[in-house]
């Protein structure tokens, strides 16, 4: 059975994950089609970050199935490197490599991992830095950039690998309020370009604006999901209602 774009790009079925005694995911299922932007929201500790970290095998799962383009991730034989070439990730703490400049951060993986030609990679990398609106900062080290700028470099770094889907793990949570906007704008640009995005976020207004589908998680399960309009206006579950009333 080969995967086609008519099938979900990422498909989770009954995913269970625990850290020792602590159960973090209790049977999560969701499908993401190519070009979809989905937002996962929910209270802290509800397993949102763990959920997306399982998709690129940063965390392993105990039970269930995660398919990325038809490839089973929950399989000891899975080629994690091949998987991670398809699935990009952006972290809350940016995690740029501090000993490399912004441009080098973007260029390194395509050259070293994908073994692409250095000159072409540099061309692409410069274009990506321009795309995230950081022209002129190519030679700055991460330590010289603001949080928002670092996060945009991190997004460019992830894009340089030409992934099919990008995971965003609370990417604005550590930012100063005035730089949140520029990062969200960058993600919005990506979404408009048709990039498949899976976001864990606390930015409700943003989720409402860009998401095709919203998932609300609590205590390791998906409580409710739907398109943004229905979700925000007609929440059914009391837990969702309570959560929304607290933050809206």
């Amino acid at each position, binding site marked *: 059975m080969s995967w086609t774009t008519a099938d979900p790009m990422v498909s989770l079925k009954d995913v269970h994950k625990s850290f020792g005694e602590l159960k973090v995911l209790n049977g999560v299922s969701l499908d993401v089609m190519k070009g979809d932007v989905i937002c996962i929201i929910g209270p802290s500790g509800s397993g949102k970050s763990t959920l997306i970290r399982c998709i690129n095998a940063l965390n392993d799962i105990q039970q269930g199935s995660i398919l990325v383009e038809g490839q089973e991730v929950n399989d000891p034989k899975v080629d994690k490197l091949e998987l*991670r070439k398809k699935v990009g990730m952006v972290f809350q703490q940016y995690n740029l490599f501090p*000993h490399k400049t912004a441009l080098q951060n973007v260029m*390194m993986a395509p050259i070293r991992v994908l073994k692409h030609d250095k000159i072409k990679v540099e061309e692409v990398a410069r274009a990506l830095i321009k795309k995230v609106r950081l022209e002129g900062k190519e030679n700055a080290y991460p330590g010289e950039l603001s949080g928002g700028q670092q996060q945009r470099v*991190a997004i460019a770094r992830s894009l340089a690998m030409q992934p099919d889907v990008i995971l965003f793990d609370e990417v604005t949570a550590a930012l100063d309020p005035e730089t949140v906007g520029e990062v969200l704008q960058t993600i919005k640009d990506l979404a408009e370009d048709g990039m498949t995005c899976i976001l864990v976020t606390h930015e409700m207004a943003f989720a409402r604006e860009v998401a095709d589908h919203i998932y609300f998680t609590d205590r390791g399960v998906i409580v409710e999901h739907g398109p943004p309009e229905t979700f925000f206006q007609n929440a059914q579950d009391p837990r969702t209602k309570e959560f929304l009333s607290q933050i809206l």
Partner: protein
Amino acid sequence: MKYETDLPVMLPLERHQSEPFLGLKSKHILTVALIAIIGPCVAFAQAPSGQESPLAVLVNWAPLLLKGFIFNLIISISAMAFGTAIGAILGLGQISLIAATRHSSWFVTQFFRNAPWLVLLFFAMFLLPFEINILGFKIPFPDWLKAILGLSLPVMANVSEIVRGAVRSLPSGQWEAAESLAYTRMQTLWLIILPQCVKRMLPPWMNLYSILTMATVLASIVGVSEVMTLTGQALASEGGRPELLAPFYGFVLLLFFIYCYPIARFTVWLEKKYAVIN
């Protein structure tokens, strides 16, 4: 504009005084000078008339002692180089994903780190043969070479810990970011982790070198003709005049101080510099 105030917080910040040469203030230089002068003076006062003054004797012997000291430095540099090379491998072994490698590296590190240097030196001296027979060729294995090997054992163990500690001190996000970009573990280590560790490893590594240099005199106990052995021999050949002890050993002390102190200062400077960046 000047404020009249008694409140310390309102007073202007005291300007940082420019760092004096090597961090030494005049009083420190004075103290060292006094040690250098008083020792010989006392010795001179003790000296019976008719004999050469202790200072003159010391000047006669100084070239030989200096040669001995340079031998100490050669031992220290060789032991450091050898210990660092093996220790780095051992340190990487300690963070290996293979449990057997990790555990054995850990054990070797702990074993040699928690052993007295002198005992390790004796261990190397008396366990290693005085010559090695390879295909009929007899390769001599002199004492100084054994001393280098003996001293490189604790260096190896300490470097191993320095490497492990530096790798551990990096935030786990660096590993995760590299993993998510499909770097292999080897690539992550060589391209991302270790380059960042070098800065963190340099100060403790230099500190270790300083300690090692001072420990090279232990080799005199096992008969290597380094500076301490030569000093003893020089004193003996001068007929064991007690007034010579202070100037001779004072001279040796001074040699080590002049060599090791700048290293210590440089280490402090590096630590300060990197503390600001990180």
